[in-house]
Structure formats: structure tokens, C-alpha cells
């Protein structure tokens, strides 16, 4: 089958979506499909720009290439699902959240000017049309599926992607730091962990990842004089990430209403428990409080208390990490590919 996997690309950025679409492409190729990853640079600001980007996708002709038909397109996230194709399947990573749940929050992009409000409404309309015309509609999590249903009245089957295939090794005993993995932006709320560390002198933290919020997070660290206990290691290679997972006590992951979040799955494959919060969204579909991690209130004190509990009970942390592994191992690319390609 000739398949085009479609995804926008914010130039010079690499995160969960990039890993997901690249892995999907590889996995399809491994199963003898002829696959092309179609990426278009994405800039989402200012004002109505997201709609222009959607038009760019709409203008593409992916029905054939060099005279041979393309059998299927798999679109992933806004605005790639504006692409036209008679056999369009959408595996929805997320809609343009600034037009939905992030609107009128501190993470908002759009203001109250008529042009901004109209852009938000036009994005809603666009989603209804472009997602509504898909032959099949999948979402990477319950959370994404629910948001789609609430906003556009469309139903998507939940199809969770497996985490990236790192060469996880056995967990080391005596891990004593809390690991944060992921892009450093405000929505990831790493400051909750840093503020928590300010409340508990015994808490040590390693923050892996890069992003626009790094400067602010370093200021938080300096303000609370955490320099000795919090380390920013930047973007790390896979081997180093595996090493960090193996050596940590637990993994902190608590974005605001995250779409899915593959970090908890990676943590579980490394047999580490996860600390998340009651408003984290996607992570709550896999992190079960008291079974494979702790789900606490989104406050520095609650995060500090959760981390302290794990530090005081290393055996409990080990058991919860092992329990998480079973959940993460259930996600396979065989299952994903079979459902994506089923007629």
C-alpha cells in the first residue's frame, strides 16, 4: 500500500509528535508498505495564521505521485488533517488547543479582538469539516477523543501509540532523584516540581529537555536557591535518557490537561513510578494512584509530599514501577498498524 503520513513541523523543534510520526512511518515500512512522511513547516502565529497553514495543506494533491495513486493518507495533528484525499484516515494527536481548552487561559494565544474571536470560530468550523470528512477517525487518547467530541460532536476511536523504543535496562537500586522529561514549556508545569523542591530540602531533581520556558524555570531555581539540588541537563541522547530513567527514584510528569503524554509509558518501561496531578489529562489514563504512581493535587506542597513518600518507601516505588511496566507493554505497533489500516 502507498501511504502518506502527514504532519506539520515547527522548524528546529522535536518532541513527542515528531517521534510518533517518524516511528509510525518506520513501522509501516517495516511491514512492506511504501510510505512517505509529508511534513510542512508550521507557524501558528500571529492572528489568523493557523488558517493559512490549513489552506496550504488543503492545496496539496496527495491523490497520486508520479502517475501512481497514493492509497491512503494518515493525517495526525492540526492542520495536517485539512489535507484532501478520498481515503483520509486521521490519527488525531491534537486539535489546535489555543482555540479550545487553552483559549482565555494564561496560555491563550487569542485575545478579545473581533479578528481573534473570528479566528477561533473559524478553526472550530474547519475542524468540523476537515475531521468530519475523514474515512476513519482515531485519537491518541481518551482525553483527545473527548475533547473532539465535546467541541465538534465527532467520535474518534481511541488508539494509543506505543512509547519510543528505547533500550531500557534494569532499574538501578538507590535512585534518589526525581526526573522530569519533556519539552520545557509553560504547559508542562515543571515549576510545580521546582516549587515542591523548595519546600522539601531533601528533594533532588534532574530536568531533561529544552524549550522556551527554560529561562523562567532557571529563574525559579535561582530564586529558591535550589542550584545544588536541581540540575538542567538539556536535551539528552537516547543512551543518556535511558541512564537517567534507570537511575531515578521516580518520574514527574504533570502538564495541564495533556493530550496523552508518552513520558509515563517510558517511565513504566523503565520500571519507575510516576508522579502526576489530578488535572494532567492524558497521563491519568495510565497512571493509577497507589498502583503505579501517585496522582496528587496540582500544588507544590502535594508534589513535594508525593515525592517524599516515594523517597521514604523505596520498596513501594520499585513495586509500583514494576506494576506500570505491565500497562506500558500492552501497547504494540502491530496493533496500531492493524487498526489504522483496517478498512
Amino acid at each position, binding site marked *: 500500500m502507498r501511504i502518506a503520513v502527514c504532519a506539520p513541523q515547527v522548524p528546529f523543534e522535536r518532541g513527542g509528535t515528531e517521534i510518533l510520526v517518524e516511528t509510525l512511518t518506520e513501522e509501516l515500512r517495516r511491514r512492506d508498505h511504501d510510505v512517505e512522511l509529508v511534513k510542512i513547516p508550521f507557524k501558528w502565529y500571529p492572528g489568523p495564521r493557523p*488558517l*493559512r497553514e490549513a489552506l496550504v495543506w488543503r492545496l496539496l494533491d496527495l491523490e497520486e505521485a508520479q502517475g501512481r495513486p497514493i492509497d491512503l493518507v494518515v493525517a495526525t495533528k492540526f492542520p495536517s488533517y*485539512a489535507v484532501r484525499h478520498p481515503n483520509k484516515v486521521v490519527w488525531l494527536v491534537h486539535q489546535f488547543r489555543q482555540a479550545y481548552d487553552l483559549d482565555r487561559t494564561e496560555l491563550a494565544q487569542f485575545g478579545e479582538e473581533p479578528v481573534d474571536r473570528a479566528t477561533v*470560530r*473559524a478553526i472550530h468550523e474547519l475542524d468540523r469539516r476537515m475531521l468530519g470528512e475523514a474515512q476513519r477517525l482515531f485519537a491518541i487518547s481518551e482525553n483527545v477523543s473527548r475533547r473532539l467530541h465535546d467541541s465538534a460532536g465527532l467520535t474518534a476511536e481511541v488508539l494509543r501509540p506505543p512509547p519510543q523504543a528505547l533500550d531500557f535496562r534494569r532499574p538501578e537500586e538507590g535512585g534518589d532523584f526525581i526526573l522530569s522529561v519533556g519539552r520545557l514549556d509553560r504547559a508542562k508545569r515543571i515549576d510545580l516540581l521546582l516549587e515542591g523542591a523548595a519546600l522539601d530540602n531533601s528533594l533532588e531533581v534532574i530536568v531533561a529537555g529544552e524549550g522556551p520556558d527554560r529561562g523562567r524555570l532557571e529563574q525559579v531555581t535561582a530564586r529558591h536557591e535550589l542550584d545544588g539540588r536541581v540540575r538542567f541537563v538539556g536535551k539528552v541522547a537516547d543512551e543518556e535518557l535511558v541512564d537517567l530513567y534507570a537511575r531515578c527514584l521516580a518520574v514527574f510528569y504533570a502538564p495541564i490537561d495533556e493530550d496523552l503524554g508518552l513520558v509515563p509509558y517510558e517511565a513504566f518501561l523503565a520500571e519507575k513510578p510516576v508522579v502526576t496531578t489530578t488535572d494532567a489529562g492524558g497521563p491519568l489514563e495510565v497512571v493509577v494512584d497507589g498502583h503505579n504512581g501517585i496522582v496528587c493535587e496540582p500544588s507544590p506542597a502535594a508534589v513535594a509530599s508525593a515525592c517524599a513518600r516515594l523517597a521514604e518507601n523505596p520498596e513501594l516505588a520499585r513495586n509500583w514501577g514494576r506494576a506500570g511496566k505491565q500497562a506500558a507493554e500492552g501497547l504494540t505497533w502491530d496493533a496500531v498498524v492493524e487498526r489504522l489500516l483496517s478498512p
Partner: protein
Amino acid sequence: MKVAYFSPLPPERSGIADYSALLLPALRERVEVVVVPRGAKRAPRGTDVALYHVGNSPEAHAWIVDALQRQPGLVVLHDFVLHHLVAGMTLGRGDTDRYLDAMQRDAGVIGRLLAHGVVDHVLPPIWEERAQDFPLAWEVLQHAGGVICHSSYVEGLARAYGYEGPIRVIPMPAWPSVEAGDRLLPEGSTPTIVCCGHLNAAKRIPQLLAAFEAVRRPFPDALLVLAGSAAPSLRLETVGREEGVLRLEYQDEADLWRLLRDCDVSVSLRWPTMGETSGMVIRALSLGKPLVVSDAGWFQELPDSVAARVPVDEYEVATLAATLERLAGDEGLRRQMGAAAAEYARREHSLGRVADGYVAALEQVAGGEAVKDAILGDVARAAHEVGMSSGEPDLAEVGVRSREVGIGD
């Protein structure tokens, strides 16, 4: 956002006036609203967008359409067939040419010839017999930056008619709660069937009377209440004398609610339809009353669980009689349909949801042109820079795709 609000309002007697009285407080909780006084020529200064409620009555809506034609905005299309309105705004003002043009827009040369026939009094007025064949809606739609309608049925009509702007289907709001007071109808008549509103031939009153006569045979205690002003052509003045039929004139809002509350079944038949939604049906749904409706227009969008539909065909009277008899003899079914109706009204016709829909539509129209200008300006610049000129097929495709993503004209 500041909205200029054009609508008939109470004490004017119209369904649209009642509708606005219900909607306005909920809308005011969400946006700033300036109600435009009747007869005003345009929206007040400083408003961001104008909202025009348009129905088929020239007395109630001509001034609103006059303002719309001066300043485009968001149109609430309460009726799709606007022939009566347009005739009033053209022939009624001595502007024959405009009526001829409107008819030609709808039906080409034949339409123009028919209009000449009407103007010269050699044909009967089209708005009395065949308005649905010549809706003349373009007189309004050509000025609409966006449209709100109350049913997918009307949305389909508008699209088939050639309107390409944004359309949002927003159901009629249900009344949240009504204090109806003492019982209005006599007790002991089972079933009590009510038909309320302006009574005319399109409400299928002759068919209802014929069907009720059949219902009276197995159910001699049955009562049919016909409440509302009546078209003279119906000759209802003799109806009250028939056994089992209670004829009431126009009822004010409070008594209307009492009537509906007291009944066992509410009947709302309609053919031909002008694309309107029935406020009476919405009231009956709110009160959890089983409904009998025509299988036509918006009524077709009501779920089977809340409404029994009667096809408009040669068996209409027999089907209607059988439907009423079934409901008369099955209290459990009436209860079941009533519960489903109340739940449906709560879910689909909540006032808050309706007001949210209005805000979405207003926002879309208020800034829509600025959004289009920003994006299409970029596209036009890029097209010019790569040497594309208007008329080229590739540029035409850009237009098509722009419309598909909702940013083209």
C-alpha cells in the same frame, strides 16, 4: 463584543417577538447587546456586529430588512420562504421593478412573467397560494454575512438556493420554567387534544377536524381544543358548535401555557412549510407533552421517541385519526413520549446552549472579514509574486480550497 439587535419585541404579537424576549437575557449574560428601536435605519455607532431577526411578515420585519440592506450582518432566518415579506417591501411600496427582479432571480424569465401577471392582476397573488415555490430569500441572503437557522432543513434549503456564507443551525430555545397557574380546560375529557397558534389552512385544520370526528367514535369523551386567531377562509366560526370541539380565540402567553399543560396530546401539523420552526412544538416539548406533527420540514428532525409523524398524502386523515386513537388509548405511551420530550427539550433546546451558539455565530461574522482579508491577502501576494493572474485554473482552485477551509467567499 457589542451587538446591535434588530427584532420585533413584545408587546408585538409574534412568535419572533416572544423568541427574542426569551433569548435576550441569556445573550446579555454573554455579550453586550444594544436593542435597536423599531424603525431605526442602521446599527448604533460603536457596535461591532448587527444581528437581524427576519421572518415573513412585512409589518414586523420590513424595517429590519431595510437596515440589513444598508449594513450587512448576521441574519436569523426564522422563515426561509420570504415571499410575503418581499412582496410587502416591493409591491407594497409601489416598487414593481424590484418585485419583478426578485422573481426573475428565483425563477428566471418564467418568474418575471408570473410577476407581471400578478402586477397586472391577471394572476392571483403568488404569496397566497404558491409562495413556497418562489421563496425570494435572496433579497435577504445577499446581504447576510452569516445565517442562523433553526433546523438542518432550512440550512439545506439555503445551500440549495446558492447561499455560500457561514450557516449555523441553532435550535429554538425551550422555556426554562413556566408558572402556569390554575387549570384552564375542563377536567374529565380524555384525551384532551390541543392545537394552538394562528390557525390557517397550512396547519391542516380541516384534516384535523375530520380525523377528530373519527377519534370521537371510540373515545366519545375526547376533547379537541382549537386555540388562536383564525384565517377567515377556514370558517371556524361554526366549529365550536360541533360536539367535543372547544374553540378559543387568541390566548396570551400565560393561558397558552395553561392550555398546553392541561392537554394530553399536542398537535402541530404544517403543510406547506415555509421552513419555519414551531414555537408551539418547543413549548409542548418543554412541558413534556406527546406530539403529533406533519412528516415535513423541520418536524422531520424530531426523534420518533417524542413525536408521531403523519405523512401529508391522500391517507393523511386516516393516519392522523389512527395516530390520535393510539395515543388516546395508551396512557403509558403518552407518558413515555412525554418524558422523552422533556428530556429532549432539556438536552437540545437549552437556553444556555442556544445563547452560546449565538455568540459563536456573532464572533464568526464580526471578525470574519478581517480573517479573510489577512489570509487571502497573503495568498494573493504570493500568487502575484509567482506570476499567477486571475482567471488561471490554478488560482481558481485556490478559491475552491479556500472556501473548503472556510475562509473564501
